């Protein structure tokens, strides 16, 4: 099965072949590297830009205004902060111009912790991204969703911030991407650049087909009756693991709702699940102060207060200035499997 980096690469190949993507660029995005996580290896339209995040976003916006559908990368989301007013410009141009200028562009960037990236390679951006109104924000947790969300992002006439969980870039999926060879060794030989001299190498792409995950649609990745875990990105497989373990061990029936899109988010899916279980824990990597899920909790309280059996909970990162390098520091700061288990058990056990 393809990993997430390969899935994104295949989606971008499909995009440049079929969806009018003519410019894919960013820092080290073109050959020879093809992206620090190899998500742009072998693409025909990929190229290296100056190391200039503001320039990358601004250039993408200009290209979108000129009728292109660019896909650009900020090498790590930790570097996106100096481009925030450019993101705002991408997001507000359609509104500010009274609907006269659209900005069909995809801005992808690795996000979150889990690779021992310390202070500047571990950041999450979900909550800040959700405040840049007018921009759509997605974050896949599986290679198939990564493929389908990328195709939808490319097709969108809105700017889409595509958050790639760093820790999942090498994680393999459980589902084949349409057109992907079943043997992962064959896929590797076809689309992974060799080590060493790559100057003569060309990818041999499988015959891929369209597969879209609609923007704004969540997915129930594990059905359950007693508790809802609302999550996305890197924490989604952690929650899925916990739900399966609880089921296997008879500790409770846990539903996992993978948001996949943060803006717009699938409010109907959140409501439907919580209406069924009456108990909910929001799990994500962002810090707890002004966490995106706090908005969802407030809305739940506003709209479904009397349907909640126990208080809604948030399991999030600790609100410190960064993620420490030492594993003890990172594990303490970011939610781990044991933390999800503990909070899920508490939510299940609390008397209604």
């Amino acid at each position, binding site marked *: 099965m393809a990993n997430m980096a390969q899935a994104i690469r295949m989606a971008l190949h499909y995009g440049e072949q079929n969806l009018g993507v*003519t*410019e894919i660029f960013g820092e080290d995005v073109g050959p020879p590297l093809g992206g620090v996580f190899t998500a742009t290896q072998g693409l025909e339209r990929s*190229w290296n*830009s*100056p190391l*200039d995040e*503001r*320039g990358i*976003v*601004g*250039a*993408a*916006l*200009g*290209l*979108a*205004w*000129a*009728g*292109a559908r*660019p896909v650009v990368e900020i090498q790590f989301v930790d570097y996106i902060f100096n481009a925030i*007013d*450019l993101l705002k*410009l991408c997001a507000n*141009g*359609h*509104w*500010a*111009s*009274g*609907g*006269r*200028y*659209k900005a*069909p562009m995809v801005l992808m960037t690795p996000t979150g912790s889990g690779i021992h990236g310390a202070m500047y390679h571990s950041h999450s951006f979900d909550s800040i991204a959700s405040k840049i*109104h*007018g921009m*759509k924000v997605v974050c896949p947790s599986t290679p198939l969703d990564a493929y389908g969300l990328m195709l939808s992002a490319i097709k*969108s*006439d*809105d700017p889409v911030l595509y958050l790639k969980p760093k820790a999942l870039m090498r994680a393999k999926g459980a589902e084949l991407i349409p057109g992907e060879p079943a043997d992962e060794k064959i896929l590797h030989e076809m689309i992974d650049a060799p080590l060493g001299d790559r100057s003569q190498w060309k990818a041999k792409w499988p015959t891929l087909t369209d597969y879209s995950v609609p923007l*704004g649609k969540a997915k129930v990745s594990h059905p359950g009756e007693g508790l809802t875990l609302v999550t996305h990105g890197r924490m989604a497989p952690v929650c899925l693991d916990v739900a399966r373990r609880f089921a296997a061990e008879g500790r409770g029936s846990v539903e996992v709702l993978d948001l996949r899109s943060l803006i*717009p988010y*699938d*409010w*109907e899916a959140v409501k439907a699940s919580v209406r069924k279980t009456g108990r909910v824990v929001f799990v994500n990597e962002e810090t707890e102060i002004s966490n995106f899920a706090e*908005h969802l909790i*407030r*809305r739940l309280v*506003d709209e479904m207060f009397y349907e909640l059996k126990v208080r809604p909970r948030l399991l999030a990162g600790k609100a410190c200035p960064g993620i420490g390098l030492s594993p003890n520091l990172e594990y303490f700061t970011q939610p781990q499997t044991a933390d999800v288990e503990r909070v899920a058990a508490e939510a299940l056990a609390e008397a209604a």
Partner: protein
Amino acid sequence: MPPKTSASAADPYRKLGAARLLQIHENMVRARLLEERLIKMSKGGDGFFWIGGPGEEAFNTAFGFQVKKGHGVDCDFLHLHYRSSAIVLAMGAKPIDAIRQMRSVAADPYSRGRNFVNHYAIPELNVVPISPTIETQYLTAIGTGIAQARAKTDAVTIVNGGDAGTAEGDFHSCLVWANRAVLPLPILIVVVNNGYGISTACSTQHGEKNISDWAKVFPDMPGKTVDGNDAVASWLALEEAFGYVRKNRRPYLLEARCSRLYGHSSSSGANRIPETDCIADLEDALTSRDLARKPTLLKVWDVESAAIDEAHRRVKQEPFPAGETVWENVFADGLPPSYPTSGGG
């Protein structure tokens, strides 16, 4: 008419010709009267914040008339700042629409009552949305520049900004991206130097002798400084710059020294400042050369003033946007049904 001597034949005013000069004069007057009306609206409670370009009419009119107008990569793209009224008027924009934006009525075609005056967005003229930021236009210009570098066209991208904005990194990013060896970009990079950033004198913050000297860093990018208060000198400098970029598909940095006749904005009072007036200078140049007579020029002021009066009267009758219209254009494909719209409460 004075006798034709070799000196008078070489006079750039005569080479440009009376018809073109009167067209330039008319647009300059129209832009000045429009800006003065916008200032009055701001001061009189018929609008809010004012920011604009009185004092830049000579350079900006010469600029606007030389744009290859239209939509798409085969026409010039403009990434402008908020002192560009004379440019868009020269390209055919109507004063009434700026008045609509000043009054923030629903019919404001540039922002539907959402943005400050002089913040244009005109897709049919490739005028991309103007932002109140002073520097981001130098970055979006890179994108349309790339699109035009890829296309087989003589169309170019033009970006303008003020002297103060050149302290921002985005200006320098534009220079770097436009001069990449692998893909030079056809961008005319314009800096209108009015000597001030809000209330701060440029001379106290910038050590460059000329802002155009930044071009010297790049071997293949010409740089030039022109007297932007001189309509004819501006015309010729722009003609050279446009010609270079169109033909060579490479960037050009042009600095125009201009007056700022009403200060930074309404935040600094928007009162007349005794600096060189480019319209008075042009009128003197035209009448002293017998290229126009004073009554003819005065009539332009009367006609344009009456047109502004009429436009303002019309706009005063137009409705303001309803509050609920804020939900339109949030996303290109409409607002999802479950998008939060209550504001809490």
